[in-house]
């Protein structure tokens, strides 16, 4: 049984079919990349899986249960952590508070539990460990808005990891960061996978996708046009056409 599976997933906005009949399968322990030209529907697919948009039709199954139609916070607590394309940490909160906010979601269920103290030594230790993992531990008390873009992206990952997710979904994690930061990011993603987290990512940086992913799904105009290992994808004629245009592919 795959960890995440979409069956005939469609998402329409008015007359625009942003995602069309997508059947995605992500097995536990994989790193799967989703690529495609701008406007191919990658982010829409992401947001539909995460519950931001309600699917127009089709089903989404995660860890053996349907999650389509659930609100984003439910999906997050079921074990899908995500980041955003334009990085969105809680700007005016400290890094520690950023991480603890997601960590605290598990305590929100009960009226008594939600009044529990968040910043106990034990919880802060947990936040510190997560920040350590992404290399931000020394900034724990800094407000997120003071971080550079690259560090903000890492903070978002730490926040997502605080949910202890089985699946981590990263929306263009390498956009706008330096080559060196990109290398560190790849190392981090591999480390997370080795610890048992499954990763699904959208990325434009081809070098990163090819190096990192076990499997790649290619989207164009909301439709899956190819899937396979990085090697298969690099040679796939439809993919070359989608990226470079008809003329080049035909030549």
């Amino acid at each position: 049984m795959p960890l995440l599976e979409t069956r005939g997933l469609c998402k329409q906005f008015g007359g625009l079919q942003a995602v069309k009949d997508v059947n995605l399968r992500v097995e536990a322990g994989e790193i799967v990349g989703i690529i495609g030209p701008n406007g191919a529907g990658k982010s829409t697919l992401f947001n539909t899986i995460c519950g931001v948009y309600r699917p127009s039709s089709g089903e989404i199954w995660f860890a053996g249960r349907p999650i389509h139609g659930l609100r984003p916070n439910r999906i997050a607590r079921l074990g899908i952590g995500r980041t955003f394309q334009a990085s969105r940490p809680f700007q005016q909160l400290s890094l520690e508070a950023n991480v603890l906010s997601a960590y605290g979601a598990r305590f929100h269920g009960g009226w008594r539990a939600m009044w529990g103290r968040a910043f106990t030594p034990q919880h802060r230790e947990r936040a510190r460990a997560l920040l350590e993992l992404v290399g931000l531990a020394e900034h724990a008390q800094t407000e997120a808005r003071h971080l550079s873009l690259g560090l903000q992206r890492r903070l978002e990952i730490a926040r997502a990891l605080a949910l202890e997710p089985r699946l981590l979904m990263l929306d263009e994690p390498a956009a706008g960061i330096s080559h060196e930061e990109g290398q560190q990011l790849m190392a981090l993603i591999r480390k997370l996978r080795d610890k048992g987290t499954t990763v699904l990512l959208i990325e434009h940086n081809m070098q990163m996708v090819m190096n990192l992913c076990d499997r790649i799904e290619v989207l164009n105009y909301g439709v899956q046009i190819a899937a396979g290992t990085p090697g298969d994808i690099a040679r796939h004629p439809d993919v070359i056409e989608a990226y470079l245009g008809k003329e080049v592919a035909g030549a």
Partner: protein
Amino acid sequence: MAIPAYYVTVGIVTGIYIILALSLNIITGFAGQPNLGHAAFFGIGAYTLAILTTQFGMSFWLALLAAAVASGAVGSILGLISLRVREDFLAITTIGINFVVVSIFLYHPFFGQAFGIGGIPAPSLFGVAFGRTGFLALVAAAVLLVVWVSRRIEGSWFGLALESLREDEAAAEAAGIDTRRFKVIAFTLGTALAGLAGGIYASFMTFISPGDFTFPLSITILCMAVVGGLGTIRGPVAGAVILSLAPEIFRFVMDYRLLVYGGLLVLMMRVQPTGLLGRDSVLVRRWQRLIAHRRRPLSAS
């Protein structure tokens, strides 16, 4: 009692303003939801207590509880509205609620129309009716309650959830936070506490009319929280104390009160939008530096 009646009255009024500013702070400061109609909930509390005590002979204490519940119930409806109507639209909706609530008080005979409701009894404890000093004690207890609630929120999982949703709702959802639930709780709690203040106010004044709960009062409450520093506890308390005492101390500005008020608001927003004692305020940073200087020699030795 040795304290002159005038000071007791000023103390009571200031206390009520502190409760209002802190209760608004739960909604606007912690959860970041605009509420420009807080006076309406103050009014709902006041009218609930007034009607229950004068027309139904209910005891003050029970009616006070009912005032908080009634206000919180209407507040939870506003909370539900806030799930659908956002930001600027919500700000205007809350203004609208203030106008509508006041006009219901004004036009419906049940609420005494423009004459309002008089003869509201004072509370009594063990058979003794409250005098001014008794009211001061009651207000002080209520202020302590609201400060305590605010402190419980600050640094709890609940408070952290409110702050996250204030910062970024979509990101908060992605972090597993049920933003809808917490918004409604914040509105319910904040408005219930305003209703509590309204109940005390009605009983203290013995007479209330629609004019006591109009939109300018909402602005005054918001000013207090903003001038002091939204999102903190010390801020709204300081703002309420400063803005309710200033006109008493500087009697000569009484005639220019609104001019000063308005000018102060503009100036605050230009110079220190996070408030006098808010995060990042110059005063707070100075103070922290001062403390740091004092502490350093101690820790060195």
